[in-house]
């Protein structure tokens, strides 16, 4: 086992190259259709990078792609970065309109789309059609390239520059692109690697979307440690996931609280039988409740359960190994990483984070304020507190953001969209947090002339919203409650919703 320190590595390419040098013939990645060693992965990345250059894609060009979890995802992502271009992974299921907005906002020169989704994004809109190509065609063409020595050594990276833009839901319906440099990410990965003791013997089954920082971070951690990973396309093909865990003797399985619920409620015994070599699970995207932690720990008593607090902009801010700390700390998200400063605003209780692993801001120039060391300062939008031993606890939210199994949704985005419906007089979105694993979107609608038409809202949502933004419930209402400043009174909406639930329960009884 070789454990490497990442602090000397200047870029993703350097970090990956070291793994290639140490373990050229070791399996780096597997997916449902292929398997690659470090050397094979490296060659594919370099060839694809050459092909991108051949096609006129240059340093600093933004290149977007839509590709489900797979080795192809990692090849194109690293090839773009090796080309010193900027990689923009777009989540599977993004609506055509969202993709157009991302292309416009980022100025992407090219978008590569996985073959099975190319029809979905066929568009008369020039934003997509002028720039779109099939990713698998690019990778196939790259295979014919003969690498020359210059292609292998010719890297001149500045790790401070933006290398990746991850788009998140914005409040006005316009997606926001979080700028991430390789330096940000390498510091974070070093922290993760040290905290979770990743090494060349680690192997993770990663079913989290790679277009998000949680999933992508785990792939980086594995590749930069010389470990291996099976890339699963979500948990929906659960048999493949369980088989991958068992056959590859997986040591780690990162997931979300929704994933924990799914496993515990539907496949607990099968999961236990497959997880014979599992030593740790990192759970994030939403808080893991003490009940979920207890259940998971009872099922797999020898597996360490880690949680962390983070956001795309601030990556991993704090880490906790709950099973080591004991049940007293099951509500904690741990202690802040050494490289970060975390403070609580005394007036609002908002968590404020600063440090070198933070994003500099949103694309192109909407930057966060900086401290005297020029490190970004981010107001998280979450409320928190520290206990006497320095452990951080999340106590609430300042922003109205709704967390759907890790997907962040701004109520304003849905409200703005639904107000465009002619028959709708007003609309308000409420994020119900009564479930363990995920929030629920509750949509209150005032129809013009009191002519309720839920189907109309459902059809409109289906047409215009990503599936995770689809309301769990649509409730007609006479008037949207407002505060003194004329803004939607979301606390009152919560009370109305709770009354609605109680009324329904009474009816059922």
């Amino acid at each position, binding site marked *: 086992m070789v454990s490497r320190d990442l602090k000397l590595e200047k870029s993703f390419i350097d970090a990956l190259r070291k793994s290639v040098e140490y373990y050229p013939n070791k399996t780096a990645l597997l997916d449902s259709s292929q398997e690659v060693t470090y050397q094979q992965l490296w060659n594919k990345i370099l060839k694809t990078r050459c092909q991108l250059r051949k096609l006129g894609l240059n340093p600093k060009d933004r290149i977007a792609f839509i590709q*489900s979890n797979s080795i192809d995802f990692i090849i194109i992502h690293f090839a773009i970065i090796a080309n010193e271009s900027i990689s923009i992974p777009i989540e*599977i*299921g993004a609506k055509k309109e969202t993709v157009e907005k991302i292309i416009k906002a980022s100025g992407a020169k090219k978008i590569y789309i996985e073959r*099975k989704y190319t029809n979905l994004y066929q568009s008369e809109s020039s934003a997509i059609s002028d720039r779109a190509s099939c990713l698998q065609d690019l990778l196939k063409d790259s295979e014919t390239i003969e690498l020359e020595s210059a292609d292998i050594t010719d890297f001149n990276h500045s790790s401070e520059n933006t290398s990746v833009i991850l788009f998140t839901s914005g409040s006005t319906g316009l997606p926001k692109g979080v700028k991430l440099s390789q330096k940000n990410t390498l510091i974070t990965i070093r922290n993760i690697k040290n905290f979770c003791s990743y090494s060349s013997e680690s192997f993770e089954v990663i079913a989290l979307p790679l277009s998000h920082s949680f999933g992508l971070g785990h792939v980086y951690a594995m590749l930069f440690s010389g470990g291996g990973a099976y890339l699963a*396309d*979500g*948990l*929906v*093909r*659960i*048999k493949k996931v*369980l088989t991958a865990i068992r056959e590859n003797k997986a040591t780690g399985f990162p997931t979300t609280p*929704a*994933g924990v619920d*799914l496993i515990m*409620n*539907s*496949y607990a*015994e*099968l999961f236990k039988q497959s997880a014979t070599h599992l030593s740790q699970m990192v759970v994030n995207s939403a808080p893991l409740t003490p009940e979920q932690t207890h259940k998971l720990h009872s099922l797999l008593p020898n597996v360490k359960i880690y949680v962390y607090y983070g956001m795309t902009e601030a990556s991993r801010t704090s880490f906790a190994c709950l099973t080591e700390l004991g049940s007293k700390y099951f509500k904690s998200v741990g202690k802040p990483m050494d490289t970060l400063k975390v403070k609580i605003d005394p007036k609002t209780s908002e968590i404020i984070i600063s440090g070198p692993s933070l994003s500099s801001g949103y694309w192109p120039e909407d930057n966060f304020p900086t401290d005297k060391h020029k490190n970004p300062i981010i107001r998280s939008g979450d409320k928190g507190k520290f206990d006497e031993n320095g452990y951080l606890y999340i106590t609430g939210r300042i922003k109205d953001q709704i967390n759907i*199994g890790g997907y962040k949704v701004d109520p304003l985005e849905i409200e703005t969209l639904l107000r465009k419906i002619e028959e709708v007089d007003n609309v308000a979105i409420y994020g119900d947090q009564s479930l363990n694993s995920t929030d629920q979107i509750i949509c209150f609608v005032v129809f013009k002339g009191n002519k309720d038409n839920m189907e109309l809202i*459902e059809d409109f949502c*289906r047409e215009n919203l*990503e*599936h995770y933004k*689809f309301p769990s419930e649509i409730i007609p209402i006479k008037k949207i409650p407002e505060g003194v400043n004329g803004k939607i009174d979301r606390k009152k909406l919560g009370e109305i919703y709770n009354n609605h639930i109680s009324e329904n329960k009474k009816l059922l009884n």
Partner: protein
Amino acid sequence: MSIENKVKEAFLDVLKVQENVYDSELAVGDIPEWDSVNHVKLLQEIEERFNISIDVADAIDIEDISDLILTVKKYTN
């Protein structure tokens, strides 16, 4: 109503997709709406509508519409 139509109805109700999306060759993950959470909801809905209880070992083998129909047939025969 035939098993095929009843499965289709449950599918459209749970996944909240338009009818033209439904295809007898559709597989899990082919559309974003058919994710792991909706997959479990769909199986529960199928169990309820057909008054059956699908064994976990069979449930994890269901990866497309035809698997779903075959499983229902197995449990209702």
